């Protein structure tokens, strides 16, 4: 029977059915062939070489890049993966949102400064705690030429709620009782209970409005073939599957016209290929620069490397409270033994700040000074204190105990943090095992409890989709999706429910400050560093925002000539 090479990276063996008598090859040839057959094929194409991390210093966060001085015909942008589909209901990852934010617009809009302002709705009002009324901007045209009406809004939001549609944003609509047309240009959303997160999420892909006619005509193929029927400054052009996505300027746009006629997104999955394309000018710019390339791009003279607010923190996610980590003293000991500064230098390419907070400071932008004090003062320290850590581990009786941390080669923020945790544990008498997981299985840690069997913790970089710390802090509520450790505290749950029900920002953030304190003290995840966004622009172009707003703000329309 012919054994055939399986199509995965596991070991392969090739054999061949031989009929009748065995071939009598010459002795030399036989030896050569046998030797070659015995070499596992994968020796011929084994994995990537390890890169040495090159850190950079003097990282300053830029608020923005210089404004564009003129129009350009086209610019090329590097993205690390191809969006499987551009259907807005499943757009919940960097690549698809980076593209989609320029084509599809939402009821509200996230600004480059991470504030929320009116978008396709010119006014959002809240007559009572469970009602949100959206008055639509008149005269907005879809890419298919039709004018936007309340019907399109009811239809577009309805797709997110439809269970048959498996929308990634369905959770945002969990408290939505009804979405109805209350006027030709007015839509009323009724909630089953007050929900302070819902109106904020209307600035993300959860609040995208598309043309009902286009979506219905495309049917099952919406998002993969044909136009998207949205309202943004660019419309979808040629999508060369597996290669590139072209956007074309939409001349019927209601807002400020885009400065470039075309925006081309090139899919460059390999980190070094992405860096090479930026250096050679094959790509003019990109977000999410591989950390190991910071120094190379900065020193290249090909363009400028910017850093901006990212709303992202790097943490160690505790997944097993049944083992030694169930004792808070052990968690505190690990946190005290962790060399955060060393990790930022190596793992984040020097761009990042050590933190003892699970949430970024930028997420609290709307909070008054006293709230910030409550949220950030007297959190567990970030500095290393090995003596104290050793004593704590000993006191908890954890010395010599074994803990397992998952690691994977998906990025240095993961692999080097796992190594840092191992080093920290070893120094205080714990036995920390690394469990290496294939990049594809690493994703399964989030979705499959079986994949987390035998693992006590794993590195986790988390970003907020809205400028509200609750986006992260609600993860520790009983039964929350990312609450892998199964943490449960009735007091905490009550506070989460309260914060979810309070609309005035300052009042809500007061409650969130208490949540932040509780979660950080308990070390439900061990906070390590704040990680800013990185942006590279070559000398030809400028204008893109530096912050994570590019996920839901039509940033490509601001990109133009630098001269």
């Amino acid at each position: 029977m012919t054994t055939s090479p399986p199509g995965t990276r596991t070991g392969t063996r090739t054999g061949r059915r031989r009929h009748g008598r065995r071939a009598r090859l010459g002795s030399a040839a036989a030896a050569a062939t046998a030797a070659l057959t015995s070499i596992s094929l994968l020796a011929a194409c084994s994995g990537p070489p390890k890169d040495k991390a090159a850190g950079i210093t003097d990282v300053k966060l830029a608020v923005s890049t210089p404004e564009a001085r003129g129009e350009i015909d086209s610019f090329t942008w590097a993205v690390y993966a191809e969006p499987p589909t551009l259907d807005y209901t499943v757009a919940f990852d960097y690549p698809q949102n980076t593209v989609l934010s320029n084509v599809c617009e939402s009821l509200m809009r996230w600004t480059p400064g991470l504030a929320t302002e009116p978008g396709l709705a010119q006014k959002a009002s809240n007559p009572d705690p469970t009602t949100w009324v959206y008055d639509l901007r008149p005269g907005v045209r879809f890419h298919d030429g039709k004018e936007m009406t309340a019907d399109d809004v009811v239809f577009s939001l309805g797709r997110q709620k439809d269970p048959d549609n498996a929308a990634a944003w369905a959770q945002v609509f969990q408290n939505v009782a009804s979405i109805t047309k209350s006027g030709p240009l007015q839509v009323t959303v009724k909630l089953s209970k007050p929900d302070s997160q819902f109106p904020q999420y209307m600035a993300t892909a959860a609040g995208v409005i598309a043309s009902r006619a286009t979506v219905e005509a495309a049917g099952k193929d919406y998002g993969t073939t044909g136009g998207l029927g949205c309202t943004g400054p660019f419309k979808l052009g040629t999508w060369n599957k597996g290669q590139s996505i072209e956007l074309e300027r939409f001349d019927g746009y209601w807002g400020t016209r885009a400065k470039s006629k075309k925006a081309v997104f090139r899919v460059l999955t390999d980190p070094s290929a992405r860096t090479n394309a930026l250096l050679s000018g094959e790509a003019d710019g990109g977000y999410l620069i591989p950390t190991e390339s910071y120094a190379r791009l900065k020193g290249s003279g090909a363009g400028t490397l910017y850093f901006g607010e990212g709303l992202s923190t790097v943490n160690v996610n505790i997944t097993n409270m049944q083992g030694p980590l169930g004792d808070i003293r052990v968690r505190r000991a690990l946190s005290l033994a962790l060399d955060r500064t060393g990790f930022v230098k190596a793992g984040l390419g020097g761009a990042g700040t050590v933190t003892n907070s699970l949430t970024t400071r930028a997420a609290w932008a709307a909070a008054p000074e006293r709230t910030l004090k409550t949220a950030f003062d007297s959190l567990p320290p970030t500095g290393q204190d090995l003596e104290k850590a050793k004593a704590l581990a000993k006191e908890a009786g954890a010395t010599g105990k074994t803990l397992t941390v998952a690691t994977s080669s998906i990025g240095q923020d993961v692999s080097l943090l796992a190594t840092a945790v191992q080093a920290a544990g070893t120094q205080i008498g714990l036995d920390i095992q690394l469990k290496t997981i294939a990049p594809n299985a690493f994703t399964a840690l989030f979705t499959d409890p079986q994949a987390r069997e035998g693992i006590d913790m794993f590195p986790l970089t988390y970003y907020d989709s809205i400028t509200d710390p609750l986006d992260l802090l609600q993860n520790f509520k009983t039964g929350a999706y990312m609450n892998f450790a199964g943490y449960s505290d009735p007091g905490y749950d009550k506070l989460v429910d309260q914060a979810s029900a309070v609309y005035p920002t300052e009042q809500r953030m007061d409650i969130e400050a208490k949540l932040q304190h509780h979660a950080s003290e308990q070390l439900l995840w061990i906070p390590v560093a704040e990680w800013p966004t990185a942006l590279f622009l070559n000398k030809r172009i400028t204008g893109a925002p530096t912050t994570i707003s590019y996920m839901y703000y039509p940033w490509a329309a601001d990109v133009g000539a630098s001269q």
Partner: protein
Amino acid sequence: MSFVRFAIRRVAEMAATLLTASFVVFAAMYLAPGNPASFLLAGRSASPEALASINAQYHLDDPFLLRYFRWLGDVLQGDFGRSITYRTDVSRLLADRLPTTLILIVMSLVVVVAVGLLLGRVAAVRGGATDSAILVTTTFAVGTPSFVAAVLLQGLFAVKLGWFPSSGAGDGGLGDMLWHLTLPSIALALYLIGMLARVTRSAMLEALDSEHVTVARSRGVPERQVIRRHVFRNSLGTVLTTGGLIVSTLLVCTILVETAFSIGGIGQLLELSTTTKDFPTVQAISLIIVALFMIVNLIVDLLLPLVDPRVTLGSRSAAV
């Protein structure tokens, strides 16, 4: 053996192999951690209704065998199903990406055969310093993983010299694509060139030592003719039998080379689909790979008797 009997047997063998392979891959996917539904929801929590709806749409809750036979039934009717991740028909997904991969593999194959045979022949015939130089070079080639070759080629010819694009498969016509795929095809071919050159060299050296070559020379047949007719032709059979190994290596390594050069072919698609447990896509690509592998084996078996008259159809052995 008659050709008809040979054909019937081979077709039956192929069908059985494809069936076995499809079952093994399906089972492996089934046992791997992760649930496609949760990947579909991008790792967000979902309402029980939504999960139930996806499970129903893609039959994810059905027992293993039922799912497998449902899939098999659809495939026999020419329906490869819908990709769970890409939310589009698998046939369309493959139609978009297969040409790129096939062109890459064919380009590599041409390079491997042309350069590999030439080097092996020159090494065997010239001997001496040339032979040693080729041996050293091919040792280096065999020892270089295609991933490393990719990085080196990119660094030198794309970034430093700027002769070739550093990645992608182009979005112009065929010429643009060939230009884009030049470096990847070399990276993919390097190891195999070394391998083929060595096999050719040793087969030819063995033929050079054989009696009929000595006889031919003593009869005054010109040396060039001796090499072409007696030596090279005799060693071709040995070389041909490595065909299956060459093609399977190309098929496996294309996954890594496509990733290194960001060429969105089916190699890369396979890797991504395995990640998200996209059953229909992984199944379809695996079948294509297995089928290609078997077709090459068949071609080798058909060609062998033509190259080496001592080999009869359907047997890989020379009648001694």
